[in-house]
């Protein structure tokens, strides 16, 4: 097809090399993850970069997969919510979301989790105000914001404590 750069698209997702045969260059990373690779964790909310439900990590940075062409992500490391847990062990942020009841319907949760992990890593989770500002790109129609903020603050506090002791901090690939 004239629309393809090459017969097969190769993506690195959650540490695995994945093949997408006969790719459409118009496909977003979000659609490719969901429809070609069976990774339905990232959600299609607005599909225009406004709601954050499709948030994934690209080379360690949180981005919106609905505004990323899959073909442009070939050289990058993609991590989705499916890649957060390691060896069946939930990521500290996933555990905190459960502990704090940080969701109702759960649709925005994968994006919230990916954004939250990045928020702590960026050092932008120092106070509830700071968390709200730096999580502003993730909308929650159920308005679980207070619980989401509490979960992130909890993880950030424990990460800070771990930093001041030699203990290894928990958490997955991302």
């Amino acid at each position, binding site marked *: 097809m*004239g*629309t393809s*750069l090459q017969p097969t698209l190769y993506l690195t997702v959650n540490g695995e090399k994945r093949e997408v045969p006969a790719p459409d*260059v*118009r496909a*977003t990373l979000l659609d490719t993850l969901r429809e070609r690779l069976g990774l339905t964790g990232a959600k299609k909310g607005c*599909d*225009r*970069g406004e709601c*954050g439900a499709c*948030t994934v990590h690209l080379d360690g*940075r*949180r*981005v*919106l997969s*609905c*505004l*990323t*062409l899959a*073909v*442009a992500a070939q050289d990058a490391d993609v991590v989705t919510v499916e890649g957060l847990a390691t060896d069946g062990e939930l990521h500290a942020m996933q555990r905190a979301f459960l502990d704090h009841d940080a969701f109702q319907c759960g649709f925005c949760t994968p994006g919230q989790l990916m*954004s939250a992990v*990045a*928020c702590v890593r*960026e050092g*932008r989770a120092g106070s509830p*105000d*700071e968390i*709200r*500002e*730096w999580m*502003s*790109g*993730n909308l929650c129609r159920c308005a679980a914001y207070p619980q989401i903020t509490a979960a992130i603050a909890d993880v950030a506090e424990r990460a800070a404590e771990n930093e001041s002791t030699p203990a290894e901090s928990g958490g997955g690939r991302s």
Partner: protein
Amino acid sequence: MKEFTYVKAPDMAAALTALRRPGAQLVAGGTELLNWLKDGIEAPDHLVDITGLPLTAVDVGPHGRLRVGALARMSDLAAHPEVARERPVLAQSLLLAASPQLRNMATIGGNLQQRTRCPYFRADTPLPCNKRTPGAGCAALQADDTAQHAIFGWTQECAATHPSDLAVALAALDATILISGPGGERRVPADAFHLTPEEAEPRRHTVLAPDELITGVEVPARPSARLSHYLKVRQRASYEFAVVSAAVALELTAGDTIGSVRIALGGVAHRPWRLTAAEEALRGTELADTDALRAAVAISFADARPLPGNGYKVELAQRAAVRALRAAARPEAPDVHRAGANGGPR
């Protein structure tokens, strides 16, 4: 979405050659282009991905001049220690824009090429819009649905505003946009990059030709850059475009008297709107003299032309300019929450 070919340009020459093909369109961060494709605002035959070009550096040159590559991401420029310290208005304009995810993706060159947020321009089903289809008319003006529209530099053809916070800050800093094209390189002042419908047909958003690309931005070293501030007034506390915004860079003489100042406004025109008459009048004014500040700023609003829906912007923009002037004179560590809270309507 129409089919297109995709090529990742290996170098500048290849990018410029690829851009000369009819139907070619450039893509970098993708945060604007992907939405244009989805909404039918653009339907290119060929996409030219320029993210492989070596244009990501942020360099502080001799005498403090700042040079920013067009492909530097908004988040990287905002986090650059020199930018936050020496040019607060720049860091603030970036951190008050979009969301962390979008700032990780969007480039400096792309930010300046954002198109208007006018809902009729952005409609996914075609509505009368002279920016989308020349001669189609303007649904916003026909319906008096103009709360978000311009109070300066508009015509009966189009009253859209440009949405870039960064462009407004760059105008206050007297920055230059660096452009490459088939004819070589050229430099355009930041406040002359966007085109108002008074200057060109609404279809044209900026001075950039289809076969040109932005390579970077140069910000001169000026004492005024340190005393600078970006004030953004929004309808939400965060993650929203400006209703109006004000960028100020000023120099103080003895005590708290204004020596020289540059003021640019966002949300009032289809380009960063300089208050040049006010800038003149503000020389020698005491910062503590609120009435004098207000009177000086008001001079630049004598020719404001509010529309039926946006008369409030005339007062709001003047107040924003006065507040930004006073905030610029009291530099503090950039703190996006305070800036966000300050930017909210009162």
